[in-house]
């Protein structure tokens, strides 16, 4: 298993090089020139050229990538075109906010999704099942953006219970994390339900019933433990889409995290920021996937890595 982890970690730099190259090329292929955006629509060509030189965008693409990569290896992601601050510092300032939001959302999603899915499985085809599934479908299909606006209007504007914007106190966490948790909660609930239903039809569960084990014990320790594996897989794999959701949620709530940072950066074609944030996000996704795999191995000793 140690060899497996080492192999995965060794692959990380390759993934990062691949992704950074892809992002590097993709953002430069986008229409819109950062120098023109900085200099404004009324700028003369001369002013745009001077700005291009200052930003180092007059160099050849391989040269630009090499200097970016060389800096990144030494922990220097360049200077933000817009804020004129080091990208590393900018990310360091925002990352805790995004992690805090993501972790809260995930805990919410697991804390609600797993029990809801179990209830649905236990009362399969009964009304609790139907309610959970309707909510899950709604949760999975609702637009994050719309939900955020509705929540803000209801709880902040109309009722005045919660702060509208920013991250000034723990109460600021409530609306964004709930909004962000809706989609993973729905996915986890559905996954838990189908996984539980499958496990509940296994022979050993029937045996447990026959032995007279209390149903509560069967659900929570016999069935759930085995049903957890696909659930954890889904949780691990879904981290990427959680990051995607954070981009939208953070933008709407003025959350000072890296998701909103990325949106702003794309708007201004702030290349160093887009590159830096993507690298950090990709590292996070890879690490989360790896953690999920390890957790599965711990839960099911039959799984071996080679």
């Amino acid at each position: 298993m140690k060899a497996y982890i080492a192999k995965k970690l060794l692959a990380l730099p390759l993934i990062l090089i691949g992704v950074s190259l892809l992002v590097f090329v993709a953002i430069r292929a986008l229409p819109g020139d950062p120098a023109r955006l900085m200099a404004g629509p009324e700028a003369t060509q001369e002013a745009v050229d001077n700005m291009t030189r200052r930003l180092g965008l007059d160099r050849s693409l391989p040269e630009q990538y090499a200097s970016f990569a060389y800096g990144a290896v030494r922990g220097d992601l360049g200077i933000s075109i817009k804020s004129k601050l080091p990208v590393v510092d900018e990310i360091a300032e925002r990352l805790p906010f995004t992690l805090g939001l993501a972790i809260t959302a995930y805990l919410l999603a697991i804390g609600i999704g797993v029990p809801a899915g179990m209830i649905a499985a236990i009362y399969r085809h009964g009304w609790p099942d139907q309610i959970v599934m309707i909510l899950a479908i709604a949760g999975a299909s609702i637009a994050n953006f719309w939900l955020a606006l509705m929540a803000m209007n209801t709880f902040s504007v109309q009722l005045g219970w919660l702060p509208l914007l920013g991250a000034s106190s723990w109460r600021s966490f409530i609306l964004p994390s709930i909004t962000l948790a809706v989609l993973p909660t729905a996915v986890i609930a559905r996954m838990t339900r189908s996984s539980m239903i499958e496990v509940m039809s296994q022979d050993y569960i029937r045996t447990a019933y026959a032995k007279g084990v209390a149903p509560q014990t069967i659900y929570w320790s016999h069935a759930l433990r085995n049903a957890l594996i696909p659930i954890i897989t889904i949780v691990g794999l879904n981290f990427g889409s959680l990051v995607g959701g954070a981009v939208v949620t953070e933008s709407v709530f003025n959350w000072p995290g890296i998701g909103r940072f990325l949106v702003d950066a794309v708007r201004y074609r702030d290349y160093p920021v887009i590159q830096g944030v993507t690298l950090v996000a990709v590292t996070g996704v890879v690490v989360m996937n790896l953690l999920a795999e390890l957790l599965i191995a711990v839960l099911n000793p039959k799984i071996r890595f080679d």
Partner: protein
Amino acid sequence: MAMFLKNRRFVLASAVAGALMFPIVAGAATLNVMQTEAPRSMDPGDQTATYTAALLDPMYEGLTKRDPDLSLKPALATEWSSDAAGLVWTFKLRPGVKFHDGTPFDADAVVKNFTRHLDTKRGLAASGRLRTFLEGVTAVDPMTVQFKLKTQYPAFLALLATGPCLMVSPAAETAGTIGSKAVGTGPYKLAEYKSGEYVLQTKNTEWWGGAPKGEDEIKWTWTPEPSVMNMALQTGDADVVNPFPAAFAQQIKANPDMTLSATDGSAVFWVSLNTKMKPLDDVRVRQALNYATDREGIVKAFMQGFATPANSPLAPVTPGYDKSLAPYSYDVEKAKQLLKEAGYPEGFSMSTIVQEQESRIGELLQAMWAKAGVKLEVRKMEGGVWSKAAFLDPAGKEKDTIGSSIASWSSGVNGADLQFRPLYHSKSASPAGANLGFFSDPKLDELIDKAASTLDEKARNAIYVDAQKLVNEQAPHVLLFTKQDLFATRAGVKGTWVIPGGLIIVKDARK
């Protein structure tokens, strides 16, 4: 973070209890201002964005300044004079002024502020306009500076009150920190710049003008979401919202807790017609399109009424604007007749390119012009793609069959030259400038150049009236409307005003 997680289970109960015990109160001494975008720099000379300029305004000053009545007044200069040709300008500087970092404000500081724009290696975002006419700046004595211009520039004094000419501390400029740490001479100084959250400004107690009149602190935040801006004003998270989204304006107007301000802006919207392409090379066809355009209808449908139908290439706030002009009524019959005279009794087909956020204008024109028999193909484009297509040369536009471009231009109080020259002078034909339809009329060029070298304001404005008439008659553009500047405040906020174009001034505001 741990605190938040530990508290997770108390969330619901506390949310209710907390709301009852601690209603959200913003500090009474802080004015909260929300705009649509984050500042692009802390250096006024390294940005060209209106909302960044508004945010920097409390911290920086120029040699001249705009007053709420839009007139130009002395600021860091106390008096000035020019030679007869208007090419050499001498300014006396205000004594006893210090930058926020303690650096004294003197002639050397002024010279350094302008030479940085003349240095091509520095590559500052706002240098372009200055570089077109400024030859150099020298210190005559410690409190006197002299500017030498390459050509006469009627907007010179107005420009001195704007971004590139606002004075930054020479020490901060040398240290290379001015882009992220503002140091000016203004009534407020930078307290905190959290690029992901807010900019906080506090009173500069050593300001030369005495005690600043505004609140103790000004806090700037931003969001691109119109509905979030509206909600922030409702909850009081924002005391001032600029620009206020037109879609919610009626709602604010009806609410006694809030005040909506709608004033003449500076952005003139138009359709630039490709005068090098058939049949738009015929002035009768261009006039026909002008007659076929229902400007009132566009203002209502696209701007919710918050715009003024255009009767001139200039905005109403621009010096020299003539409000008595009334060149084109909405008259479909007249349009048809002109098309018939030009040899197109059955109408013709043409295309227009438009950015996504303005695409509704294209659709409205499509419906209006169809009544005169003109089939308009509307090509919507993302901003970057649009500007590439709009600035093509005549051959490129011919190849892509681009018959017209929908856009706007904003020069406002800074003078008519900044509207006429880039949009209508033959030398500004794209890609060199924003004369996107390659309009060329020697008579208009002559008027524009003559006005630029006329120092007397009355005489200059008279020339601009002729130029407006000529543009209206030759119709290189279908002029549409001038946008109004909308901002909204909580009802108690007093002393906020806006420089046409959306640059909000809040340094004297109280709430």
